[in-house]
């Protein structure tokens, strides 16, 4: 699944493929919030298809609605209008069927549970037998390299380790779709790069589609098959850029060497320019990056 060829142009994306094949299909989606100062258009006219096994990043400045879009896919919020299906079902049905795993910017671990018990939480809630649960948790902790911390409590771990526990938890039920809302946002740069490399490997291993919200351009470029560039007020998709990284034909090939490859920097530049195009007018022709976007 992971070697599926990503759609190459934004135009191709709007052509209706077999919708039930797609992990996420969004058509004409709008989301408005009622606030004290009036109606806020968080998202307007969003069209996006995420194929099964595809890694798609949503990037844009603060307030562009990228997190809102992810929350709508997760059925944590309800769209005002438009069409949204997850594996051909409504978002609510997909949530009830547990078709996706989710990780937030905060690890959101339960402080009274050990690391192992935190990872086991979704399995427990969905009635997996305790023997099967133990095996699965052991596998997951090994995958994120935290086996020896299984009996620790979250506050005994560093931020990076807590986030790895949260990622292990999101993978517990082998979801075909992973939703991640800036999961590495609070981490230091070195931990972050390691986590990115791990995530690329995990996504390739499991063949899951990933919708990844970030405000870091290099992160989006390194991880994604396609980068969706969004602009704020109202939240719109301003560009969808397929990543052409010479070093990486398959996702599993992506490693730290890629971060220094020229194709990587070309893609970073392309995303940066797309962000700039969406964020400013002619009066300010050549800033290096859009405001509010992390260019590290």
């Amino acid at each position, binding site marked *: 699944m992971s070697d599926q060829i990503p759609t190459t142009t934004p135009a191709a994306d709007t052509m209706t493929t077999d919708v039930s094949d797609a992990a996420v299909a969004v058509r004409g989606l709008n989301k408005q919030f009622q606030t004290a100062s009036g109606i806020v258009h968080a998202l307007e006219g969003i069209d996006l298809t995420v194929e099964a096994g595809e890694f798609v990043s949503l990037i844009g400045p603060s307030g562009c609605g990228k997190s809102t879009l992810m929350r709508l896919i997760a059925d944590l919020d309800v769209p005002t209008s438009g069409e949204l299906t997850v594996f051909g079902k409504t978002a609510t049905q997909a949530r009830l069927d547990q078709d996706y795993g989710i990780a937030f910017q905060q690890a959101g*671990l339960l*402080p009274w549970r050990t690391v192992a018990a935190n990872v086991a939480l979704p399995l427990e809630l969905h009635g997996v037998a305790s023997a099967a649960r133990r095996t699965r948790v052991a596998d997951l902790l090994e995958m994120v390299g935290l086996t020896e911390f299984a009996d620790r409590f979250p506050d*005994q771990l560093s931020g990076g380790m807590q986030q790895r526990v949260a990622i292990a938890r999101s993978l517990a039920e082998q979801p075909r779709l992973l939703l991640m809302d800036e999961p590495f946002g609070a981490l230091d740069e070195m931990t972050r790069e390691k986590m990115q490399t791990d995530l690329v490997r995990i996504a390739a291993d499991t063949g899951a589609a990933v919708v990844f919200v970030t405000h870091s351009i290099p992160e989006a470029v390194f991880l994604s098959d396609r980068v969706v560039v969004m602009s704020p007020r109202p939240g719109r998709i301003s560009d969808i850029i397929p990543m052409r990284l010479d070093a990486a034909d398959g996702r599993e090939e992506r490693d730290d060497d890629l971060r220094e490859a020229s194709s990587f920097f070309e893609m970073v530049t392309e995303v940066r320019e797309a962000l700039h195009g969406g964020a400013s007018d002619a009066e300010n022709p050549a800033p290096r990056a859009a405001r509010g976007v992390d260019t590290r």
Partner: protein
Amino acid sequence: MTTNTTANAIIGAGTGATRTKGWSPRTESILRVVAPVTLGIIVLAIWQFLVTVGGVSDYLLPSPTSIMAELVAYWPAVVSATVLTGTNSLLGLLVGSLLGIILAAVAARWRIADQMSAPIIAALAVVPIVALAPVLNSMFGADSQFGRQAIAAIASFVPIFINTLRGFRQTRPVHRDLMKAYAASSGQMLRSLTLPTARPFILTGIRIASSLAVISALVAEYFGGPRGGLGSLIATSAASSAYSRAWAYVGASIALGLLFYLATLALERLVLRRVPTGGSR
């Protein structure tokens, strides 16, 4: 691996945190016991001195030795009175805790229930519950302990309800989102998230209520009902001018209140021991 060593360093720093100044931990823990005991002995000595040498009337203030003598002489009565009052308090505390937790869960779940109950809770919080004692005594008959138990239950209900309700509102948005993403049922939500989050608040409520339960059960005995509890024995001893004996019963009441407080404190420590206080990210 970088992150692991960092975490170990953090853990090391946490457990290795030392006192900035003063005695060694061992000396300090000994002092924590020795200091108040010493003060107690000094106070008792001064008290004894005032009564025997200073000439304070034995009616006004019985000496510690005479109180002790009464305590020994009436030991079986003291024990049975303590057991009786203790049972009333314990029953009241248990029923009050259960009611408080259940009704707080209802109020947290349905806003309308919260709004409906708010004035009643406020009334219960400000009215001296023992004022209900004569009413309840005549309602349930002069030979029933029920009135006293009911008073202890109502008195302990209030702090437990208020604390638990507050605890139920401490769940974090990220945890609620997570449970929703897992399509958790409301029962699972309560068991896995809301109750554990509220646990420290509930236990604090029970600890506060434990003292209130003893005080209420004891004071309720002043207002009639069957004899035999610590409260009624304090009243009758004082009425018959047996002040040393009254003081002996007062001592037993203090011990009973302390017992309740320490037991609930131990429960709180036991349950929360493995729950880190620091929030996880």
